[in-house]
């Protein structure tokens, strides 16, 4: 298997707050890799480091063997042409319609005509289950429900046909039906587009259902990595407590 992302001996801190210390992680091509861990531990930071949105203090973040931290503007642009990200709250551009949001990366990276972009937007919206509805594509993000926003964000991220999709808590704040729908969509996109998916989530059913491998963040590293089955039946107390929704630190209570 080809390694798409390799994080080696990585150190990342915000001021005095150390997020990663000598952290190592490898993501293989075509897999759905899920990152779990407590809130505020730096799971989203991991995704932002991969796509060069945050700098790191030491170690390596390698995309197909190339150091992300050393990339110049054009190389970063090329990286982001191949790796797209779905943000926690969608991060749709408030001042743009759904259509403009979905075609944003196409305008940045391609010379497609407006009808071609419209066609591609229709395909993507269809793929995420929104279908082509003139009322929806001309709507502003403020007029969309939470579930629709997530799906438009997903459509925006796949419009450019990326090789890797980074999902930052894609199901947060959604109702159970929409959580299920997003989970199915992640699997569908992985199957149809053959993308590598890296998912940060707190949603254990989604993690177990969608993932090929799961990594749990603990003590500034990923000490526990395994298949969903291995994680689910882990003998490690910390992993078991997290999976079962109990705080490891509270085990004496």
């Amino acid at each position, binding site marked *: 298997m080809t390694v798409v992302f390799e994080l080696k001996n990585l150190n990342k801190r915000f001021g005095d707050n150390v997020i990663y210390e000598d952290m190592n992680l490898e993501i293989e091509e075509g897999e759905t890799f899920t990152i779990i861990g407590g809130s505020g531990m730096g799971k989203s930071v991991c995704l932002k480091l991969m796509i060069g949105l945050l700098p790191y203090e030491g170690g390596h973040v390698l995309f197909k063997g190339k150091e992300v931290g050393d990339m110049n503007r054009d190389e970063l642009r090329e990286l982001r042409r191949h790796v797209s990200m779905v943000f926690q709250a969608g*991060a*749709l551009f*408030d001042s743009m319609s759904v259509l403009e949001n979905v075609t944003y990366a196409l305008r940045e990276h391609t010379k497609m005509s407006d009808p071609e972009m419209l066609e591609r937007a229709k395909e993507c919206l269809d793929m995420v289950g929104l279908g082509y509805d003139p009322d929806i594509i001309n709507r502003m993000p403020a007029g969309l429900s939470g579930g629709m926003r997530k799906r438009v964000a997903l459509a925006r991220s796949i419009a450019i046909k990326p090789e890797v999709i980074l999902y930052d808590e894609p199901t947060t704040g959604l109702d159970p039906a929409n959580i299920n729908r997003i989970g199915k969509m992640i699997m569908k996109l992985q199957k149809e587009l053959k993308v590598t998916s890296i998912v940060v989530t707190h949603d254990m059913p989604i993690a177990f259902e969608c993932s090929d491998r799961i990594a749990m963040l603990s003590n500034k590293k990923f000490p526990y990595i395994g298949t969903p089955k291995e994680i689910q039946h882990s003998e490690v107390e910390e992993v078991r407590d997290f999976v079962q929704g109990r705080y490891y630190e509270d085990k004496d209570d």
Partner: protein
Amino acid sequence: MLSWLESIGKAIRDGVEWAGAMATMFLQAVGSGFRRPLGIYDIFYQIVALGVRSLPLATLMGVFVGMALTWQFGEALMSFGAKNAVGSAAALALVRELVPTIMALTVGAKIATGMTAELGSMKVSEQIDAIASLGADPVKKLIWPRLAAATVALPLLCVYGNVLALGGGAVIADKVFDVPAGYFYETYVDELYPMDYISGLVKATTFGMLVGIIGCFQGFQTKFGTEAVGIATTNTVVATSVSILVADFILTMIFLPVG
């Protein structure tokens, strides 16, 4: 004593770091402006958004500052029996100093806080990260058009404000001091040399640049949470006002010997 000195030292260091980071962003924005695509549409969109929507405030500011200053000068000059010189007296103060500075302190602060609030909200909702993740340059997309637009809009608003201030002054001269509006206009224009207009416009352009870069920088520096947007916006008002007053003093020092 030591902690007092430490606080002063920290405040100075923070100020220098703030100015340094902002200067770096300014250079990045200007550098990005020369890269293709030039983003002319975005700049014009921002000029309309920032400039045209500021016209009501600029109108009020221009008219009232012209009227207030003319009244003040008129009262003072009347006691010397020199009320006919009110146009000459008001001209220099308005064109060189008051219109550019008050325009920047009112309209400029409005523009800067608007930028901070908008960009701060985008930062908090990760829209700025989203722009970068989609392969675009947030500095080029967000800062450069706003910086360019503020730098163009403020001098234009200043010219507009000067015309209105002249009009407001003429009304007061005519109605309050019985100095005919036509005579007020002639003495007003006669008093001004090209360097006076240039000095006012250079000030307005500099203030526009400061307004643009401070507004954008503060927006990009916004921390997490909606409260942070409020804090960043408040800081923008303070930073913009102080920067404008300091820049005004420096430019006055430069232009006084010339003009």
